[in-house]
Structures are given as C-alpha cells and as structure tokens.
C-alpha cells in the first residue's frame, strides 16, 4: 500500500500538521518502505491541491525530526533512522503522547482496560520489523 494522504480543510489541524502526522503514521506502520521515494513536493502538492510551500515545509520538518531523509538528486526517503533525540527528549515526547491518549480515553468514557486493549491492537497492526528497528540506537546523545 503506497503513501496515501488525505487533507481536510476546516480542520483544527493545519494542513502542514496533517501531512506531518500522516507521513509519520505511514512510515511507522511500514506502509512506506525504506527504499521507496516519497512523492516530490510538486507532485504531492498537485495531487492534494495544496500550496507546494506547505508540502516543502512539512517534508523539511519530517527530515529535521529524523523521519525522512533527503537524498540529493533522488528525493525524499524514509530515514535509516538514526535517533536524533536525547533519551530525555524521547521520554518527554512519549510521555506527552501517552498523557494525551489517556485524557482522550477518559473524556470519551473508555475504561483503562479498553484503552490498553486498543493500543495493543494497534501495536499488532504496526509492522513488527519496524518496531524492532533499533530506533533508540545510533546517534543519540
């Protein structure tokens, strides 16, 4: 399954943020393979009917975050994933994500067990090869 991104206007998420999140999701679920180039800025902008500058900024952010890497002359690829965050920063980001998940689950009236089961189900869907990828090894300081 190649990368499919769909954009909603009138959302509380900016288009920039929607691209970043959907590319992240596609990478971490293994839908985009390591050696598969992502669409060019121009191609994705024309496909989604959005400003190319928005796509370029989203790709740049994904590259900064270590999700994508730019290979000169070839385009954007899934990064070989050198970890770019310090251990503390990784923990902080994960903690933030978990806190927001827990509070959303609570607000929507799910029990803790249900939330845990839903997370587990998602984990089973994620590409296990990607999960075991040594994301935390490498260049972290």
């Amino acid at each position, binding site marked *: 399954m190649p990368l499919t991104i769909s*954009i909603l*206007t*009138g*959302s*509380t998420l*900016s*288009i*920039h943020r929607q691209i970043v999140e959907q590319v992240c999701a596609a990478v971490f679920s293994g839908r985009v393979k390591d050696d598969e180039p992502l669409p*060019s*800025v*121009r191609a994705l*902008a*024309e496909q989604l*009917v*959005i*400003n*190319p*500058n928005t796509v*370029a*900024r989203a*790709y*740049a952010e994904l*590259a900064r975050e270590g999700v994508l890497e*730019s290979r000169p002359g070839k*385009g*954007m690829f899934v990064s070989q994933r050198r970890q770019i965050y310090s251990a503390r920063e990784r923990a902080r980001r994960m903690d933030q994500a978990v806190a927001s998940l827990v509070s959303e689950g609570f607000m929507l009236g799910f029990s803790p067990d249900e939330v845990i089961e839903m997370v587990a189900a998602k984990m089973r869907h994620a590409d296990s090869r990607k999960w075991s990828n040594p994301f935390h090894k490498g260049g972290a300081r």
Partner: protein
Amino acid sequence: MTSAAIEANGLTAYFGSRKVVDELTMVVPRGSVFAFLGRNGSGKTTTIRMLLGLLEPARGTSSVLGVDSKHLSDDVRARVGYMSESHSLYEWMSVRQCGEFQSRFYSRWNGRVFDSIVGHFHLDPRAKAGQLSRGERAGLSLAITLAPEPDLLILDDPAIGLDPVARRSLLESMIYVTRGADRTIFFSSHLLDDVERVADYIAILDRSVLRACCSVDTFRASVHRYAAHFGSASTIPSQLPPIRGLLHGRRSANDWLVTIAAPSNDTLESLRVLGAASVEELPVDFTDAMIGYLGDRGEHAFFLDDTAARDSFGVSV
C-alpha cells in the same frame, strides 16, 4: 530588485465623503500566494484598482513589481495578469478567437498554457464566449490571464459563482502557476477552505481598515479560544471585563467561551481572577479564527505582521 511583488504605503480612498480604504500599508512578498480577505464592501476591489493604477488614491502610494502604480508602463502591465470579478469578454468571439485576439497584445504569449487551461475547464474552443456558463467564462478569463505568463497574478474574487468542479480547476490552475518559482499570486476570496489550501499569507481588511497581514500559520497560531468554566450560574459574571486581545465572548449557562488574539499569561490570568473554576483551551479551525477575527464585538487593534520576516520560499526538496 525589490523582494516585494506589491507594496502599499498608507493607501487611502474615498467614495464621496466615505472612506473606503483607510491608510492601508502592506507588503506582498515575491513568490508568495497571498489571499486578500474581508467581508463584502470592506474595500478589497478598491484596493486592487489602486494597485493597478486604475483608481487614484486620495493619499498614499503603491507599487507593483517595484514600479509606482501611477506610472505603470505597458511593459510592466504585460507582466501583471489581472482578472476582474466581471470577466469581460467579447461575447461574439469563440473561445479560440478570444485567445488569438488577446495574444496580439502580448510579446510573451504561451499558447500551450492557454490550450491547457481551456482543456482543464473542458471548454469547446469553438463555443462562443457569450454562451458560456459562469464557470466556463471564469476558465476562459483565467486562460487569457495566464497565457502571457505574468510574474504577478491579481485575481479579484476568481471563485465567485463557481461550482465545486470549476472551483477545483481554478485552484489547480493556481498551483500550476506556482511552478514558476518567482511568480506571485494575489487573490481575494471568501472561500476559506480554498484559502487554507493555497495561501502562504493573508491580509484581512475589515471595514476599510487592514487588521492582519501575516502568514496563515501565524494567524492560526495567534487566535485562541478558551472555555472558562464556572461552578454555577451564580458565580458566573454576566459581563466580561476588558481583556487584552478579546475578539469575541459568548456566555452559556456555566461557561464563558472567549476568542482571544495573541493571548499572554496575563490574558489567562484575567480569566482566572473572574473566578473561573477552570480554563480550558479549545482547538480553533481556520474559519472559526477568521470569523472570530471579523466578528462585530471584537477589539479592533490588532495587526499581525510577519511578511517582512518571512522564511525562505520554495524550499526545494
């Protein structure tokens, strides 16, 4: 060469004794897609006419592509594509004839661009201009405007009256135009979904006064909405005190829902001292932010300007 495609300095216009554009100062960066927003009658078309030298301002100056609007030579005009709201066309000409006729006025005329836009809007080249639908006329106008490959495109409410398919074709054509890295598009619109898709920058004109001129991201990041919960109907204040940046406030049974521009810690503190049990930030979409910004009850003193400190455009990846 200046990096501004359009510059306006204190532009002011009157209709009779009524001020329709009030001291408008803004910069449209070269290479940007810039949306010019505001309610009907807020002065957008008048501003565009002054920029193009079609209307003399009472005060102030402006320039397009670095040349004073009052002294635009034919050469400069040929580099500015202008599409008015009315799509004036010779009714008796066919689509193809309209293109041929217009091409004679330009030294730079790209017939392939004309044909591809005509094709994109599914126009029959033999159809008479007078028999085209609203959307088809817009398509033909756009083809005529884009074929000379202008450096600056000024579109006055190009999407008005278009059906969803024609609107999408218009957006696609606008994105196509941005293939030329240095091309600038300045357009007015009421369709905020379209603006959200294509604009880098927005300027908001409100009853003849410019109230914002900034990137879409800055605008979105500047308008916040909070729900202040009060314990009971007896503790909730019936009126809000003056809060810096307050755009809009609405009271429900036990809550005040407020929209605030560029809130600071002080702003939040002023909600807490009212006796709110909790203050929760709510997500805001682009349309909410815009309506909040233009709402009647708001303070009118904001001006977000980051067009000067823009980040790099056309990052090629």
